[in-house]
């Protein structure tokens, strides 16, 4: 590889965006256009395939692997309690999930930089507002749960405490005993962001995460007894972050391990279960 090749993007991975109902192809194309050195759009034999996360996405991943894809990006995957074994079925293909909020770049930096205070929190309170035409409120709660997991918080229980046509509340516990509360409500005033508040004895952490397509930066602030620490803003959408993560995983050969926690979340929030104890 010459330096010029790299500059031309001739080292770019070829990528194919699978057209499918529900996949916002335009959003993916727009994100790819911001990574001209990493990705180049191609046809059938692309190294990377972007598939929709609508029901049946595991089948789409298998199909892409069969056609020789080295990497698959699953956009907005719906909960799938059987996803844990998928990676083992396609050992030569790296699977990366592109999720609303959970793939937000700020979540990863907060998880790294605020790891200790996150571990000391007694309360994790996640709140969002969903437009009338948006996802089901259970799907929103699942997306919140995934964001909580990506903060490095092991969630061991979660139950739907209340569900009305306009709102939902889920409560549970983390592995360290923190109370977890997730809530979502419908309003057309939604800006798609997730508001996370972590409260410990001597610190609070507040995160505002914009939605998956937005480049509008989030905010992450740790407040302690004497001062406050704000993380630098990242002007990068969660979708672009996921595409970069997939590129990194393929160039360095580092496997990703998103499916285990994703599956745990899907099992915790089994869509078939009704309201239960809080």
């Amino acid at each position, binding site marked *: 590889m010459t330096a010029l090749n790299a500059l031309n993007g001739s080292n770019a991975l070829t990528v194919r965006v699978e057209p499918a109902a529900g996949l916002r192809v335009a959003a993916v194309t727009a994100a790819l256009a911001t990574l001209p050195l990493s990705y180049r759009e191609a046809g059938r034999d692309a190294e990377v395939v972007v598939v929709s996360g609508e029901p049946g996405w595991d089948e789409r991943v298998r199909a892409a692997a069969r056609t020789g894809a080295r990497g698959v990006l699953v956009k907005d995957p719906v909960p799938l309690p059987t996803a844990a074994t998928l990676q083992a079925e396609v050992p030569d293909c790296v699977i990366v999930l592109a999720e609303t909020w959970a793939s937000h770049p700020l979540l990863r930096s907060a998880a790294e930089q605020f790891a200790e205070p996150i571990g000391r929190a*007694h*309360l994790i*309170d996640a*709140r969002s*507002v969903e437009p*009338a035409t948006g996802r089901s409120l259970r799907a929103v709660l699942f997306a919140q749960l995934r964001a909580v997991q990506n903060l490095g918080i092991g969630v061991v229980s979660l139950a739907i*405490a*209340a569900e*009305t046509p*306009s*709102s*939902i*509340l889920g*409560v549970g*516990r983390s592995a360290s*005993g923190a*109370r977890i*509360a997730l*809530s979502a*409500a*419908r*309003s*057309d*005033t939604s800006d798609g962001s997730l508001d996370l*508040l972590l*409260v*410990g*004895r*001597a*610190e*609070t952490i*507040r995160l505002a995460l914009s939605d998956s397509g937005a480049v509008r930066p989030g905010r992450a602030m740790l*407040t*302690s*007894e*004497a*001062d*406050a620490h704000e993380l630098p803003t990242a002007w990068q959408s969660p979708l672009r972050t996921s595409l970069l993560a997939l590129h990194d995983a393929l160039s360095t050969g580092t496997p990703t391990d998103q499916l285990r926690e994703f599956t745990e979340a899907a099992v915790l929030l089994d869509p078939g279960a009704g*309201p239960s104890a*809080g």
Partner: protein
Amino acid sequence: MNREPLGVGIVGAGPVVQAIHLPTLARLPDLFAVRSIMDVSPDVAAAVSGRIGAGASATLDELLADERVEVVAICSPSAFHASQVIAAMRAGKRAVLCEKPFATDREQAEQIAEVSRETGVPVIVGAMHTFDPGWTAAVTEWESLGHEAHTIRSRVVLPPNARFETSATEVLTPRPASGLPDLDDPSVRAGMVSGGVMGLAVHDLPLIRRLLPATDRPATDDVEVVSASALSPWGYELGALVHGRLVHAVGALTEQWRPTWELEVLSDTASMLLEFPPSYVHAGSAVATITTGEKTVRFGPHAHNGYEGEWRALHAIASSGSAAAPGVETLIEDLVFAVDLASAAAGRVRQEEIR
């Protein structure tokens, strides 16, 4: 119309009086003059009254017998509120201001209402958020636009009270430090959550009731607590369905410095966010924003918060008679709502699995 300032008697002279009421009254010299202060600790009564050149009373009877005392503020610990409010009414005072909560159960609240009707003496509860001009402006707009809330979420995370008290006054009676609670003990959890509802969440419960009105008259609140948890070192998490609409509240006292006091109200087409300053400090009103469609409208900050508003309201009802007073029924309904929530939450948190 009374042109002279009204004479005030204050019962209980703890941090709330020192940091909240005396600085507020100092800004309203045309309306009020403090005549007498009573506390079970005579030293506290003497020291606090001495600061402002008022007299000290050794007993409640002595304070109530003082004819210069025209209105009474009850600022003792909550357990004494009902009996002291009733005594002040029976003494024929012109109006009573009682710190929140004005009673600890429904029976006490009904007794107060009964005596208020019998004596004609109006009572106001010092629920300062209900008097906050940011809130009153925003809720008037919200209601005039016909928005119907279906979800309300509250977040109150505060640094230690002492930080605010010491910036609002020079406190005479600092609070004792409290240790870490044993949350393994169900009765500790129950006490914390019901104390959290009656002590902290109570500030916003009248707002919540107003935004989620009962559909029947007389109003009976249909409340189902769906989640409750006690937080270390002090706090609560509480979920409830009120007339089938979701209310979620978290409150915590922490050592970190940033106060957060938010109430978020959602309807299908609008949302309202109220951001209140912490208690004790006199930092102006809440800032409220109402978002609809493409625009957000802001209310406040106004120069003063609800502390001044409650004293002004007291002056208005004491000057023009009880007709101007808020209905005592509303106060009872607000209190019963708080008591019902607190006891249902306490019951639930006893059963809580904490691991």
